[in-house]
């Protein structure tokens, strides 16, 4: 990490409230969080702690009840569709469920072509576009020749998630929000996907916001870890600091919940 950290994305007093009156649920509660350029920041919490809601707000997919999001020091403006599209050139996401991330009517060529067009490559010759797509597929160990004219649902979960990474490779965003990208695939493909994600991050130097419930995974991938409980951040710091020497009881509980192999796993603390 560079010595002087440049602020990439930050929020102040970000709040999301679902429902009103007696059914009011505060999903994200006055969150101030800072993401710096080039870092991998993890957001860890159990289900229902507001991780995904926060991610969706950062992406601009749902409205914000209160507070502001600052992108590169300036207030984010996504009031119109055009501005929103401009914003999405900078921030992209990988979601939890690869099976529902794709439009089922569009084949893989169009999925990848869209990404090239989005980066202003609409006027490139077709051969150049194919070359770019093949390069992106090669990056994630997929063969483009086998994928043409295929549809995403013909692939396995791990392959779909890898195609998602190929998309990110073409789009070249500044920030990537990875919302539990490996929770629905098996441990073996998980290793592949994490390796690719980290390699891609090195290649294009983007900021990764990694959302997960598995603190072991967070420890493996991230520089900074933020622990979230009921819509609030309870602990933040570098990965070694937070995970090896946790201060908050909640963090300690999260760590004790992950199965271990070198130490005794205490089952009595549920």
């Amino acid at each position, binding site marked *: 990490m560079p010595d002087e950290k440049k602020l990439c994305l930050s929020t102040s007093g970000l709040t999301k409230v679902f429902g009103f009156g007696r059914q009011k649920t505060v999903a994200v509660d006055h969150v101030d969080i800072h993401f710096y350029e080039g870092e991998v920041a993890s957001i860890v919490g159990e289900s229902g702690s507001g991780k995904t809601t926060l991610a969706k707000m950062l992406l601009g997919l749902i409205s914000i009840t209160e507070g502001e999001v600052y992108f590169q020091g300036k207030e984010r403006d996504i009031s119109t569709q055009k501005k929103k599209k401009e914003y999405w050139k900078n921030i992209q996401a990988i979601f939890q469920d690869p099976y529902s991330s794709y439009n089922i009517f569009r084949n893989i060529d169009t999925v990848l072509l869209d990404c090239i067009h989005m980066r202003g490559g609409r006027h490139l010759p077709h051969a150049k576009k194919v070359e770019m797509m093949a390069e992106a597929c090669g990056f994630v160990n997929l063969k483009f020749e086998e994928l043409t004219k295929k549809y995403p649902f013909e692939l396995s979960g791990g392959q779909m998630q890898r195609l998602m990474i190929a998309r990110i490779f073409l789009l070249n965003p500044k920030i990537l929000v990875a919302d539990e990208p490996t929770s629905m695939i098996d*441990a073996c493909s998980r*290793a592949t996907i994490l390796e690719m994600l980290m390699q891609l991050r090195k290649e294009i130097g983007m900021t990764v916001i990694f959302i997960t419930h598995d603190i072991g995974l967070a420890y*493996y991938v991230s520089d900074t870890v933020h622990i979230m409980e009921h819509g609030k951040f309870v602990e933040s710091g570098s990965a070694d600091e937070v995970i090896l020497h946790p201060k908050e009881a909640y963090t300690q509980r999260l*760590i004790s919940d*992950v199965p271990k*192999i070198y130490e005794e796993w205490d*089952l009595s603390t549920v």
Partner: protein
Amino acid sequence: MSNAILEVRERTTKNNVILEVRELTTKWVTRFKEDICAVDHVSLKVEEGKSLGIAGESGCGKSTLALSLMGYYFPPLHYMSGEIIIAGRNISRMDPDEVRKSILGKEIAYIPQSAMNALNPTQKIIHFIEDVLQAHDLYITKKDIYERARTVFETLGLPAEVLQKYPVELSGGMKQRTVIAVSVLLLPQVLIADEPSSALDVTSQKMVIKMLRQLMEVGFISSLIFITHELPLLYNVTDDIMVMYAGQIVEEGTAKQAVFDPLHPYSKGLMGSIIVPEQGQRDVKLTAIPGVPPNLKNPPTGCRFAERCKYVRPDCKVIPVGLYEAYGGRAYRCILSEKELRDAYLREAKKDAR
């Protein structure tokens, strides 16, 4: 309270082995009449009070094995050969209706992968339980059903109020635990849990694991077969681990042997994908196995792992490999000897260190 239920149970097994499977082979038949042999000559033995873990990546036949073990075959799954012996009875060639009546639930219970979706959203949990118990005993009274359900739920640490709730009112972890509690209502000998915690977060996962262990301690089940791809989980739950690849068993051994000292190159690769939040784990490089499992429509003649194996030799792709016994009561399926494999791993480790 739990003792009252335990007395109901009859232990029919004379010897210690509860479930024995010999050379079981089952296949899926597709629309185009192609055979997919997802379980290929699998033999296993589960002893009383022991648990067996089955590991492997997706598409290796773990879930098909779980389905086949029940002895309840319905198209497109077909039985081909082999024997399943539970409580001294061979159920592999039994009539499906007979299996459903006398084996399922009573001898073998099965928790499918998305067990949470198994609950009927329009029924309260207690009505679901009534259905289950009445299917096995027509003359059971509602009071008995409620008492039985309450006893089991409370023994397992679930509040009795759950019985009067609809599935939508329960959280994911609670639903999963409810399904597990319902599956042991008839006190089966063997419980087959197929990825019971894969859709849950770590906290709920721990509760589910605690419950599965509790089932064995309380005596609701005699043995457990646990299927997952999460090796740290398997290591903490089961006594023995079986690694499956392309429908075959490639390694068998105790949990400790399989995790810390794997013999087969495939198990070695699987162990490289373990992520745990412990000191020093950050710098460990994850080793992913390249490629995908072979298509089982026409499996390779030689070793099925040869295509992806680092230590492949020309013989591997030609000679069919059997399951060899190794020192310490373990078995592995590889053409190389134990010593050759260990040497290869050592060389690899040295190369990485440099």
